[in-house]
């Protein structure tokens, strides 16, 4: 993907840019809001990664508002040291698609960027999701593996659905909390791991090929290949 990173802190910018490039993306970098807005408006990007507070009179929120008012729909991920909930709400209201609080693990940023960049297309909503021999039917809300029915609870179904919609991509624990449970909170312990391992047990029991993989220091990924 071709990305624009607008970040004034040189160290954070270098770290993010290097990481994204290593993951195979092209990254343009602007150090202030005005340059960022100019670049974002005049060139084509697949994704914008914006710091919330920027020098140059145009902060992240203003930048997105301006872009959106011009009809620009490029996905936007906010990076911010402002963690307060209303700050996050402000960022999303302005037209941001996701919000990540500093300090963050690069794996978290990468997972979110990739999830945003490869959003399922809205034109043809799928009724079935498939990974290898695992099939999830969104209409009948059933899960089958190798044509064998697997009983899952409603929340497990949503968890699996989210993983399968991002098959081949890393999904972090906070992403699962936000998307599957719809809360912003600190779970204190590894409860998400417990939920995932339960689901994994149900799916992989009796099959030799595991589908849900743990990605060290990052999160989980569902994919056919080990």
């Amino acid at each position, binding site marked *: 993907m071709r990305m624009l990173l607008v970040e004034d802190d040189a160290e954070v910018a270098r770290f993010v840019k290097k990481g994204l490039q290593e993951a195979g993306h092209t990254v343009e970098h602007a150090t202030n809001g005005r340059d960022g807005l100019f670049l974002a408006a005049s060139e084509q990007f697949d994704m914008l990664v914006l710091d919330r507070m920027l020098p140059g009179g145009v902060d992240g929120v203003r930048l997105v508002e301006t872009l959106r008012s011009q009809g620009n729909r490029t996905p936007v991920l906010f990076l911010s040291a402002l*963690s*307060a*909930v*209303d700050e996050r*709400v402000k960022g999303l209201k302005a037209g941001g698609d996701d919000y990540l*609080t500093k*300090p963050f*693990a690069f794996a978290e940023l990468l997972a979110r960027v990739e999830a945003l960049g490869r959003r399922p297309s809205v034109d043809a909503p799928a009724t079935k999701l498939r990974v290898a021999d695992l099939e999830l039917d969104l209409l009948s809300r059933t899960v089958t593996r190798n044509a064998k029915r697997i009983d899952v609870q409603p*929340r497990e179904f949503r968890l699996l659905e989210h993983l399968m919609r991002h098959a081949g991509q890393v999904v972090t624990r906070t992403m699962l909390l936000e998307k599957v*449970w719809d*809360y*912003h*909170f*600190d*779970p*204190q*312990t*590894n*409860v998400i791991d*417990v*939920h995932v391992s*339960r689901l994994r047990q149900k799916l992989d029991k009796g099959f030799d090929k595991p589908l849900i993989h743990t990605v060290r*220091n990052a999160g989980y990924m569902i994919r056919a290949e080990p």
Partner: protein
Amino acid sequence: MAPSLSLGPPRLLKSAGFRFALLFAAMFASAAIALVAVLWWATAGALDRQTDAAVRADAIALAERWREAGATGLAEAIEERLAVDVENEAIYLLTEAEGGRRLAGNLDRWPAVPAEEGAWFRTRVLHDGFAAEARLHRLELPGLRLLVGRDESEREQLRRLLTEGVFWASGAVVLFALMGAWLLRHALQARMRPVFATTAAIAGGNLGSRVALSGRGDEFDRLAQTLNTMLERIGTLMEGVRGVSDAIAHDLRTPIARARAKLEDALSEAPDEPALRATVEQGIADLDAISRIFQALLRIAEAEAGARRAAFAPLDLSLVLADAAEIYEVAAEARGQHFATDLPPQLELVGDRDLLLQAVVNLLDNAIKFTPPGGTVQLSARRVAKGIEILVADDGPGLAPDDRSHAGERFFRADKARATPGSGLGLSLVQAVAHLHAGELRLEDAVAGRTPPGLRVVLLLPSP
């Protein structure tokens, strides 16, 4: 330049009390002047008008007499009147117009009358050998000049007495007004003194100082109460800020120092790359833990400052609790504990959904941490008269009564809890969330008398 805070009484003219008093003194004096004016008009004025009326009547009667009996008759009438005037107040003079020969009367000669005076005038005359103030009326008859009047010496005396009285009374009014002003100013200052003393003490750094109330329940007491309420609120906020800075100083520095030491150590001592890598990973984990403590502190501070009340929305607490139960049930089961819930189908509440969930999650996390395998963790909620109660009970060691009052303090950890991982911030946040929702947090034995008693945390949230 900072405004100077002088504690001495303000200078006289700047004193609000004095200015109030002066205003009232002025009103008092105006009333007194009006009173005196009315008095004057009613006494001295009435006497003057009476005299004038008598003189006019006399003059008309004499003119009548002249018309009937001519100059001789007039002279006789005058002599008759003088003869019966026992008070010796009447003044008459009849002269010829030409030559000025005196025909009758008790004045020796025509008084010197200023030309500009009209028919009525007041002047000094020589009456019975004494100089006297007289009120006179001049009448021109064909060939004759008649002067009718009254000796006003006694009236004059009365008028003087009245003037003197008014003068002294005015002095007394001014004196009383000034004394009143002085007293009022002192009374005001005395009532304001506690406020000055308190604000000065607070400016001096003693934030615990409060304005003393007089108990009279008047405007000053209300002002003092308002001030005290404000100070209470500022105190709470200051406490929060201080709490955060204490926490930063103490509980963030320590883990930072630890992480730093580990990294520095690894830099010089690590035998090989895998060891160095492991230490760096540990360092990152340490930093993440520090970030989480920081995040928790900020959440607590936000909740305590009431800054998040803007995010309040109507919600069904039952759903939030069910979600919390769903998330944590697996954690309890993974540790071999039983997890029991008892939730009513619907609990309407206005609040902050994320913070309420965080509070319940913190309680559940504690309960799960302190309950041994085989024990039970219970989450229940119920409607009570005051609102909604959320109850989280465990089979853990419980909390000693002495420790309960400290449980909501940041970083407090009971002695029995030291071996269990945790930051000591969980209950602080619950308490802050309770306060934010105008509720309260109560800690009690889950089963009184049992050993160990277990802990039950009751979060009471008022609901409309």
